[in-house]
């Protein structure tokens, strides 16, 4: 076990726009090599009252980038006299990522709501590119979701449809990506404010080759007869 391996959030992160706002989602696994250092991390971090950021890649790098951006945005909000727009927040993230591209290893998704543009999602992958998208996926688990979203994403979803889609998607990624796991956290941002939700690991749907959880083999053995043991 390499205890000197950097803390990375292998991760699955998602941001989806819907009719009225955005839904951000993430898993909760932070690993040091193959060891799960934190099984209930919070990867969706606040930048301002109305803008949040999903972090993936190096835990240290993503934290420091969001700390800097939160600091700049705070000053910007004071100067501007009103809440910062999602676009400004995302571009500040881009500047930090781009200008330090040789040193940083973090992929980010910025999502929020402002009164000018409504709900917006911006993806900022490694290197510091900024891409505005109706939905974005990131982290190691995202590779398992491109096909899923190609098929399942639709324009003009409701808040509940969007959140269900995000939870389903993160759950599918967790099923196949060893670097993703734990609980699913979602953050919904719209004109009314911000809602945080929590979906524990045992409440998620089961996928192919997964079985309903039991308390113990002893219960399985005592509940069914004939004996379910096989040679």
């Amino acid at each position, binding site marked *: *076990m*390499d205890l000197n391996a950097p803390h990375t959030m*292998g991760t699955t992160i998602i941001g989806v726009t819907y009719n009225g706002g955005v839904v951000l989602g993430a898993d*909760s*696994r*932070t*690993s040091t*090599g*193959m*060891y*799960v250092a*934190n*099984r*209930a*991390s*919070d990867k969706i*971090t*606040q930048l301002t009252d109305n803008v949040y950021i999903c972090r993936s890649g190096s*835990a240290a790098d993503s*934290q420091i980038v*969001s*700390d800097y951006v*939160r600091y700049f945005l705070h000053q910007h909000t004071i100067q501007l006299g009103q809440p910062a727009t999602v676009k400004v927040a995302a571009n500040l993230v881009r500047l930090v990522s781009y200008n330090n591209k040789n040193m940083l290893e973090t992929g980010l998704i910025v999502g929020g709501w402002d009164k000018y543009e409504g709900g917006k999602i911006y993806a900022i992958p490694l290197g510091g590119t900024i891409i505005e998208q109706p939905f974005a996926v990131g982290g*190691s688990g995202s590779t398992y979701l491109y096909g899923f979203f190609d098929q399942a994403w639709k324009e003009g979803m409701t808040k509940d449809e969007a959140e269900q889609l995000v939870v389903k998607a993160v759950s599918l990624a967790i*099923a*196949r*990506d*060893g*670097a993703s*796991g*734990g*609980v699913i956290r979602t953050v919904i941002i719209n004109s009314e404010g911000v809602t*945080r939700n*929590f979906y*524990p*690991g*045992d409440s998620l749907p089961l996928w*192919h*080759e*997964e*079985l*309903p*959880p*039991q*308390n*113990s*083999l*002893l219960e*399985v*053995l005592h509940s069914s007869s004939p004996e*379910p*043991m*096989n*040679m």
Partner: protein
Amino acid sequence: MNLMDSTHSNPMSLCSQADSQRTLYPYVTGTSVIGVKYKDGILMAADMGGSYGSTLRYKSVERMKPIGKHSLLGASGEISDFQEILRYLDELILYDNMWDDGNSLGPKEVHSYLTRVMYNRRNKFNPLWNSLVLGGVKNGQKYLGTVSMIGVHFEDNHVATGFGNHLARPILRDEWHEDLSFEDGVKLLEKCMRVLLYRDRSAVNKLQIAKITEEGVTISQPYSLKTFWGFSAFQNPTVGAEGSW
């Protein structure tokens, strides 16, 4: 000394001439196996995952198999090498049966054979990339041993491979005792498997528990464990420390 599976280690390449085939690094791997001695014999547990790097590719891989009449073999590491080992053992048992002399290979003998195979492969810089747990009962004598990919081998009352070395063995050292009942043994193994599920990235929530007694081998049907996420600290861990974990 590295006693566990190294799924990410460098190839041992001191010889530079052209090789026909040798395992440089593993591809499809299984994670921890745990074994304990209990009142009637041996209990062993392993999940059913076959990882392909960080992808949880195969989720119904049986990593524990009966060997002959008296032994049970569990393996972590490269699955193809495990399958090759099963072929070697199959041949070994076949030849043993062909003697038709009423004698049969016990767990101690099978363990010794495996140790020789693993060590000799290691000496040729072409290891079978596995950590093995071999348990069994013969004539009332319980036996539980382990062999690694470099030929390190020993027996004990409780053994584990891979991450199990770090996460399960401390629990077993504290809670194992002589003459565990079947129920207590199963609960102890499940406790270890649950910790592995939380903390080992390559663990998969589908496992089997196998037992071997004088009567024979039984491997349970696959099942999943419940996990607990209800700590209040998990709800909003970054309240008051925005930007942290």
